[in-house]
């Protein structure tokens, strides 16, 4: 096959200017000089250097000389490029051109281990062994599309797996692979998508991140061990010398995630982004990463029907408007990037897209730099690519103008000194108005369109004209038309040639007689008017741009809320302290802290909020939440996944953050789901709407992890296929814990033994393998990390407490804990808290004895009791849920409030700074319209660290602003539509609202 292809290529390029010395020639050797000189061109030597009237000389695929006054060597084939431009051709860094697509060959049932045969990695998604240059097979039809768009060179790699092996740099010349591979291994590639692997793990984004981290650690260990062979790890280590590329497919937060991942291992990735980086500029800038950016700007939405228009979200509309600004904003912030055509329907759309950005203020030379110089630097080939100076590859395009403008024509694309011709620049421009004389008759003839594609018309008057059929081939032209003013039927047929200032030749009249004809140019067609108009339009477009909001979702703010000095006057203050409820009391918030509580407090310069008739409470804390998490809350693929971490996947753009704020919630524990006995680590965040994931995380919080018991972990309700993974019974669940902690203990001992070696002995010993899962479990054993365990039935609750006691630690919290009331005394004795639902039950068999009195009973036994949500909707009315403990079991109102404030603060070890209104604590407070646990209570102001994050008083204003912005964008989109631009149908987005039980099976592998 290979050989055949090779032969085909050879026969096409038998006169190749390169010699392929190892191959036998059928016939006589046919190596040609390949010496070309391009004269009179406007030569863009690189993105920033333009030389008028320059000469470019190339030979055998390389630039020999370029510039002004360069002598044309003797014998060179001379190309006169008068009025034409030469640019270095573009370099594509995100491509899989020529790489065969991977097959998926796993079974449909659970797949707990890898299926790839051979001495490969424990996970099929780690494909570091893959070498793009070995798999590469030239594909000229794909290459041709790229060439037409102005590309000359591509970095191609296998876009499959988390670790994807090396990439190879190839030219787009239709030559044998031996010649067009310019650099065998130029890069190593990563992504968050496991691709064709059918192995269950990882099933979530956080699982993917953890697996990549573990791979780094394994590779480190692998270097110094001799116990086993792992081809993938070996390759991973070898590939570390190349530039490392990360495809952060998703949104701007994925770019931040990729960068953080690299930081952990001292690797600076070159990151492929998503075109929405402008939405988190500050954070993107701080990564210091070089980026590869798509320009797949969305089409306008069809918003003609107002009901259908409802389906377009504000953020989609705004992104439609702002996406073309992305590159400009990144440039202004000093971020280095290259541009990819990846993500476009086809590469030919590239200039149209870039044109939009240029219209919005992106400097043309920046765009050129990002297509030539930067990508060359990224793959460390600046010496051979990206410019047209001596010694570089002869990779360039010949155009009639800037290739980042939409109407620019690329005549030819030269790759490694080989021409690919798309338009003949030697053809004359015919457009204009002519006087056509055929025999004795005169006509007005109008010619429009670019050379080679002209449209001819006979114009009688303003309203009447008729078409002329035309054919132009090199220097010859034939035209035919019917003179409709004449009675005689039949066409007048003209055949002729081009000459200066017009055309002439012989005509055959309808009656068969011959005549002479000629056409004289009267005036050139100038579309200046049209251009001017367009420019004017562009100006108005630029002035009308909307502004950024944080986060980039409806209800986002144009500025992140900032800390203020706030004095709340004359409120009923629920302190959660010994003082209890204080009537008509003032509270001063200063520097993000509660500064003063008392009567008649004054503070100059403070923003005063009248609390008369209102109630001030500590902010609500949700011990169990799954909001603000990207791509999966469960890494349910294995029984123990302590290596995964919700902190890696916090999603600051989730509208539910704002919705929680509207219910007085200030902080949440974002938990892993309950699909496995030992789940992932949690993130504890304050709901700082508009801030980045890192800013939301409470930096001083203790570390937590999710465990789970019962039906979910034994997969009772997962269908008939899922009966394989251990455990399938509650008996098995205990053994999972026993096994995990036994292994963790041994792991710790192994490390202790190693660490206690002398320096000299260490040199001779092999360091144990660092295992993220076991590291986490060791933290638990040493009470450096705390467990929040999903639980329902008393037997298993009891079991886990006993397991913990055997291993010398305590369970911190049982969450859900619906049968906690059955063993509240034992819980108290163990010292564990309970975070429960107020009244959920009946959704599965194990909750049949769940009673709404649970909280009251646990509380009565002295167990620290909280009410949690596990649900984005319920999370915003936890005050109501706490209120139910008064109905069921008669919990006093102050104690009930503590169940959603101080008690969860205790369970999360936040109580030193949160959970009550006390001088010195964080200014995390809520002002309510009514008694806080009443159904009639609405959170009016939700304040975190002295900044107002939710204000009911400005809701109308906010909604009006949203409406106005939508209206503006709708009008703008309608403008696009009436200008004839294509639009896309509006389809609503739907959010997955995660619960504990949300099991997203292999979110990426099923794509």
């Amino acid at each position, binding site marked *: 096959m290979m050989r055949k292809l090779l032969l085909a290529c050879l026969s096409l390029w038998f006169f190749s200017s390169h010699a392929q010395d190892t191959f036998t020639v059928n016939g006589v050797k046919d190596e040609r000089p390949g010496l070309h000189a391009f004269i009179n061109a406007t030569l863009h030597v690189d993105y920033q250097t333009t030389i008028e009237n320059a000469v470019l000389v190339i030979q055998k695929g390389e630039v020999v000389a370029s510039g002004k006054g360069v002598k044309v060597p003797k014998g060179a084939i001379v190309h006169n490029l008068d009025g034409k431009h030469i640019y270095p051709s573009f370099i594509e860094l995100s491509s899989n051109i020529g790489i065969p697509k991977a097959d998926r060959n796993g079974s449909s049932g659970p797949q707990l281990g890898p299926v790839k045969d051979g001495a490969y990695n424990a996970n099929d998604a780690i494909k570091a062994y893959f070498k793009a240059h070995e798999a590469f097979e030239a594909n000229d039809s794909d290459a041709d599309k790229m060439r037409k768009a102005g590309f000359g060179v591509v970095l191609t790699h296998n876009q499959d797996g988390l670790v994807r092996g090396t990439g190879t740099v190839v030219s787009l010349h239709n030559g044998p692979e031996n010649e067009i591979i310019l650099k065998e291994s130029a890069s190593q590639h990563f992504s968050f998508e496991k691709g064709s692997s059918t192995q269950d793990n990882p099933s979530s984004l956080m699982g993917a991140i953890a697996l990549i981290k573990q791979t780094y650690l394994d590779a480190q260990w692998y270097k110094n061990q001799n116990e086993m062979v792992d081809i993938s790890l070996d390759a991973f280590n070898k590939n570390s010398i190349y530039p490392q590329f990360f495809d952060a497919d998703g949104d701007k937060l994925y770019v931040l995630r990729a960068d953080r991942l690299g930081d952990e291992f001292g690797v600076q990735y070159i990151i492929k982004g998503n075109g929405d980086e402008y939405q988190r500029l500050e954070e993107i800038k701080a990564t210091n990463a070089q980026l590869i950016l798509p320009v797949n700007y969305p089409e306008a939405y069809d918003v003609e029907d107002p009901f259908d228009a409802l389906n377009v979200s504000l953020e989609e509309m705004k992104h439609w408007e702002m996406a073309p600004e992305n590159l400009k904003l990144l440039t202004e912030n000093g971020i280095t990037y290259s541009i990819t055509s990846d993500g476009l329907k086809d590469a030919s759309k590239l200039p149209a897209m870039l044109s939009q950005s240029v219209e919005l203020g992106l400097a043309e030379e920046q765009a050129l730099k990002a297509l030539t110089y930067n990508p060359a630097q990224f793959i460390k080939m600046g010496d051979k690519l990206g410019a047209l100076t001596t010694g570089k590859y002869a990779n360039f395009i010949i155009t009639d103008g800037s290739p980042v403008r939409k109407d620019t024509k690329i005549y030819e694309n030269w790759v490694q000194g080989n021409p690919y011709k798309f338009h003949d620049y030697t053809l004359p421009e015919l457009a204009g108005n002519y006087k056509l004389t055929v025999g004795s008759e005169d006509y007005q003839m109008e010619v429009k369109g670019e050379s080679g594609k002209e449209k001819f018309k006979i114009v009688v008057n303003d309203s009447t004209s008729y078409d002329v059929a035309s054919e132009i081939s090199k220097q010859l032209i034939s035209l035919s038309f019917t003179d409709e003013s004449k009675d005689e039927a039949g066409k007048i047929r003209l055949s002729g040639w081009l000459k200066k200032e017009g055309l002439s030749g012989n005509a055959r009249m309808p009656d068969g007689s011959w005549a002479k004809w000629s056409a004289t140019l009267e005036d050139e067609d100038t579309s200046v008017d049209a251009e001017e108009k367009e420019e004017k339009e562009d100006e108005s477009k630029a002035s009308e741009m909307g502004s950024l909001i944080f986060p980039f979702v409806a*209800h986002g703010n144009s500025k992140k809320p900032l800390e203020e000095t706030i004095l709340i006057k004359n409120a009923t203050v629920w302190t959660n302290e010994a003082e209890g409820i204080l009537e008509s009391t003032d509270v001063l918030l200063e520097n993000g802290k509660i500064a003063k509580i008392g009567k008649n407090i004054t503070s100059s310069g403070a923003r005063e909020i009248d609390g008369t008739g209102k109630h001030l409470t500590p902010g609500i804390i949700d011990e169990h939440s799954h909001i603000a998490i990207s791509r999966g809350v469960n890494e349910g693929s294995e029984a123990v996944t302590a290596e995964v971490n919700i902190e890696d996947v916090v999603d600051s753009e989730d509208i539910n953050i704002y919705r929680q704020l509207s219910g007085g919630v200030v902080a949440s524990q974002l938990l892993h789901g309950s699909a496995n006995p030992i789940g992932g680590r949690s993130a504890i965040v304050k709901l700082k709407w508009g801030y980045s994931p890192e800013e939301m995380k409470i930096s001083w919080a203790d570390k937590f992890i999710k465990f789970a018991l019962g039906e979910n972990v034994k997969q009772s309700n997962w269908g008939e296929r899922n009966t394989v993974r251990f455990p399938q019974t509650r008996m098995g669940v205990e053994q999972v814990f026993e096994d995990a902690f036994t292994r963790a203990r041994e792991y710790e001992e192994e490390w202790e033994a190693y660490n206690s070696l002398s320096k000299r002995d260490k040199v001779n010993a092999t360091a144990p393998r660092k295992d993220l899962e076991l590291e986490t479990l060791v933290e638990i054993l040493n009470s450096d990390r705390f467990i929040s365990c999903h639980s329902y039935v008393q037997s298993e609750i009891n079991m886990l407490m006993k397991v913990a006691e055997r291993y010398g630690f305590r369970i911190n919290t049982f969450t859900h804990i619906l049968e906690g009331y059955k063993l509240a005394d034992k819980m108290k004795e163990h010292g564990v808290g309970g975070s429960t639902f107020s009244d959920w039950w009946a959704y599965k068999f194990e909750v049949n004895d769940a009673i*709404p009195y649970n909280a009251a009973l646990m509380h*009565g036994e002295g167990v620290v009791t909280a009410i949690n949500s596990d649900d984005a909707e319920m999370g915003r009315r936890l005050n109501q849920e706490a209120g139910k403990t008064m109905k069921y079991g008669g919990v006093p109102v102050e104690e009930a409030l503590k169940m959603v404030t101080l008690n969860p603060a205790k369970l999360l070890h936040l109580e030193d700074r949160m959970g009550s209104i006390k001088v010195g604590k964080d200014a995390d407070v809520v002002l309510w319209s009514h008694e806080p646990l009443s159904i009639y209570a609405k959170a009016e102001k939700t304040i975190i660290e002295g900044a107002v994050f939710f204000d009911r008083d400005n809701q109308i204003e906010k909604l009006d602003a949203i409406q106005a912005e939508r209206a503006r964008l709708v009008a703008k989109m309608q403008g696009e539509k009436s200008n004839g631009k294509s639009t896309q149908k509006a389809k609503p987005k739907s959010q997955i609202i995660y619960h504990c039980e949300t099991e997203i099976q292999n979110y990426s592998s099923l794509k």
Partner: protein
Amino acid sequence: MKLFKCIGILILSVLSFFAKAQVPAPGEVQSKPIAIMNAYAHLGNGEVIENSVITFENGIITNVADATVIRLDLSNFRVIKAEGMHVYPGLIASNTIIGLEEIAAVRATRDQDETGDFNPNVRALIAYNTDSEIIPTTRFNGVLYAQTTPRGGRISGSSSIMNLDAWNWEDAVLKNDEGIHLNWPSRLRYPRWWLGETEWRENEDYDKQYEEVQIFFKDAASYFEIQNPETTNLKLEAMKGLFDGSKSLYIHTDRAKEIVQSIQFALEMGIEQVVLVGGDEAYYVKDFLKENEIAVILEETLRLPSRTADPVDLPCQLPNLLHQAGIKVAIGQWGEVMQVRNLPFSVGTAAAYGLGKEEALKMVTLNPAQIMGVDDKIGSLEKGKIASLVVSKGDILDMEGNKPEYVFIEGRQVTLEAHQQRLYKKFKDKFDQE
């Protein structure tokens, strides 16, 4: 083999669960007239009597009056002193699967969804389990009637109005087979989130599905016109009531365009009683609904808005927005069957968002009774109506106040304590003794 064993164990354990927990016996038939004295009465029709006297006899209300005005001889009466308490008509839960589903995750306990697309002849009341453990937890919070409704398919079946304290479904039924439930096709299909989709897709079968509905209804109309068809068609037989006005057509749909299209369709088919169920986007077509006098049964207020740009509390405001537009609204609570007991709080939330307590209460009492055609019997505290009422220690719409002390259905005093209260007592006693 293993599988069979598992199912066997499951069935056994379900059985044993039912054996161990017994739903309390229904209240005894009213033998003596009863008077509730001095309670704050919320009549369900929007009116209140601050200091009321309410009497009932043989299960029928005989007096609803102002205690400061009326004088009655109560010597024969059982008198309930309810000063400081609140009395309400029993709340009505619209469009629920109560009695049809026991444990959501256990298939054997699910009886709401029959196979097939057009099942108007399938009747919810047949599967209604009076001994469901969900029922006592629901009436414990003041919900005394339910429209028990099948799910699934294009036409799910027929719903009935049931009281929530009975020995069997025949005793429980207040109005049988009162409505046919049509799940109108959606122009959009839900994203396949398990494939990573977040965007709805166009339903390319929409026109076809519309046509299927149309053909079915036309056939049903034709069957209705033909007085003596040669062969009996059970499906079409069940549809007759829609054309003679004895049954209502409940159209389940949420989006504006589907709302308009489905209702236009139903009216063109000559169906007199049309009710919209769901109606998430009803506000956008409020004028259309008002013009055609279409009542709406809204889903619970305790849910998230469907769009990011919506006001954060749009679902809470929706009942009031529609009310202001002059539309008759009932509030339902059908997300999960265990949540039916939170209907009062869903209504309380609507009250807080502009509706006011009495107007909100009406949306779970008189309005649904009118919509379902049982307002001559229930839905308000009025002379001649069935004595199904709740005496609560406090405001029934608020968590703290929702403490029913006396609950009557058809004048029979209902036992409030059931499985959950028994477990509470069992363990409270244990801890109290320790």
